[in-house]
């Protein structure tokens, strides 16, 4: 079964079409990336898929539930780590996890269990009682992802998880994300080519609200004859500008 299926998903802001008639499917357990420069429409797409924004037209099924007609059902099976670090600054790591688990409806025992699991999975034992605002950017992102994972979602959305992190913190976060592969369907957005290349099973290249190409990093390289995803991306972007359509 597909974890996600979009059917002409479209979002317009006034005259601007931020997401344009998207059709793609993500099989269960896949690591899927939306790759595109700033303003390509990645966040808009994630917002629609997580019930945070109503499509102007079209629909998408997440875990078989329509994001237009069954928002509540969608919310129960997804986890999202939003683009900006979304943690309660004055709460500790443990309190942040408790808050999000409680509002997601976990009962007390399960909550304690899950918090323990998250703290060990992300190696946060030492900072568990530290306030979120005292953590470095990298640790705040880890907390943000742990919060998204706490309620055991079927689909995890990570919107630019490594934005603004230094290279070491980024690699560290990659390892954490890599560790989740296969356990859960993941949708990651990024504008870092090497990040999409290193982590994803498949990559959708988003340009000006449209999916300009979709395939595994290997397929995208072969289709464009490029030596890495960055050059493949440039070839795809240039072809898209000329009005050409390139599908791997």
């Amino acid at each position: 079964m597909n974890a996600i299926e979009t059917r002409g998903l479209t979002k317009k802001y006034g005259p601007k079409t931020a997401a344009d008639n998207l059709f793609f499917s993500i099989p269960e357990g896949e690591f899927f990336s939306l790759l595109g420069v700033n303003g390509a429409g990645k966040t808009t797409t994630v917002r629609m898929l997580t019930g945070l924004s109503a499509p102007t037209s079209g629909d998408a099924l997440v875990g078989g539930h329509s994001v237009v007609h069954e928002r509540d059902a969608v919310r129960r099976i997804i986890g999202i780590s939003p683009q900006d670090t979304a943690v309660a600054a004055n709460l500790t790591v443990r309190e942040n996890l408790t808050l999000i688990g409680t509002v997601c409806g976990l009962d007390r025992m399960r909550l304690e269990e899950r918090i323990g699991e998250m703290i060990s999975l992300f190696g946060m034992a030492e900072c568990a009682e530290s306030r979120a605002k005292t953590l470095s950017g990298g640790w705040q992102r880890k907390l943000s992802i742990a919060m998204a994972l706490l309620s055991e979602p079927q689909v995890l959305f990570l919107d630019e998880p490594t934005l603004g992190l230094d290279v070491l913190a980024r690699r560290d976060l990659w390892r954490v994300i890599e560790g989740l592969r296969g356990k859960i369907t993941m949708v990651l957005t990024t504008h870092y080519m090497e990040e999409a290349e290193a982590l994803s099973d498949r990559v959708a290249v988003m340009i000006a609200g449209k999916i300009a190409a979709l395939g595994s990093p290997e397929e995208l390289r072969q289709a464009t004859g490029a030596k890495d995803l960055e050059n493949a991306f440039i070839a795809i972007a240039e072809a898209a500008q000329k009005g050409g359509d390139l599908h791997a």
Partner: protein
Amino acid sequence: MRKMLAFARRNLYEILRDPISYVFCLAFPLVMLGLMTLINKSIPPEANMTLFRIDRLAGGIAVFGQSFLMLFTVLAVSKDRAGSFLVRLYATPMAASDFTAGYLLPVLLLSAAQTLLLSAAALLVSLVSGPTLSVGGLFLMTVTLIPSGALFAGLGLLFGTLFSEKAAPALSSIIISLSAILGGIWFDPDSAGGVLLKICKALPFRYAVQSARAALVLDLGWEAWGFPLTVVIGSAVLVTLAASLVFRTRMRADLN
């Protein structure tokens, strides 16, 4: 209910763990309490000016303190709305009422605690400067000011939802100044009369101060205490409902 309480606890901690809250919500009203008591000492009795005497000052200072809790509510809500923490909570099964009640409840608790602390300080001041305040009166004042606390909490949620994060601090300062002036904390609107008195009578702040002052001296008649308290309760209900409605509408719009 669990969802709402979990969110309320977070909002309580956001204010309690911010040192600036103590500066504005406790230290500043305390400084004003001391300052006005000193000023009162230098006013000659012939002037017949009793506004800054502790038995009239205490109620005004308590309401003044509540208006700063409103400020912190405005700042907290507008900051949440600008950031993505709220977005993350929007993506959970939380209902709009969980958000609004979760913002209002901690402010209500904090305002009761604040009035108790300011009352204790007023008692100490009264022991030094006289006339001595009654503990019963101070307790009744604390209870009387609960609806006023709800009124300021509601105003905080309302303005926090309407104002942008950038505009919130400036606009809240204006509202605090106006509520202090129009509440008759630092001057007597009755002696001013005219349009100013009419404006004061049209807004709930003066009634909050009046009911607090009456409660403090155990003047529990309808005119001195019952009527102003009723006006404050009515305003608190209206403002809280309006704030909840506005928040719900804005939340729907955000999710569109």
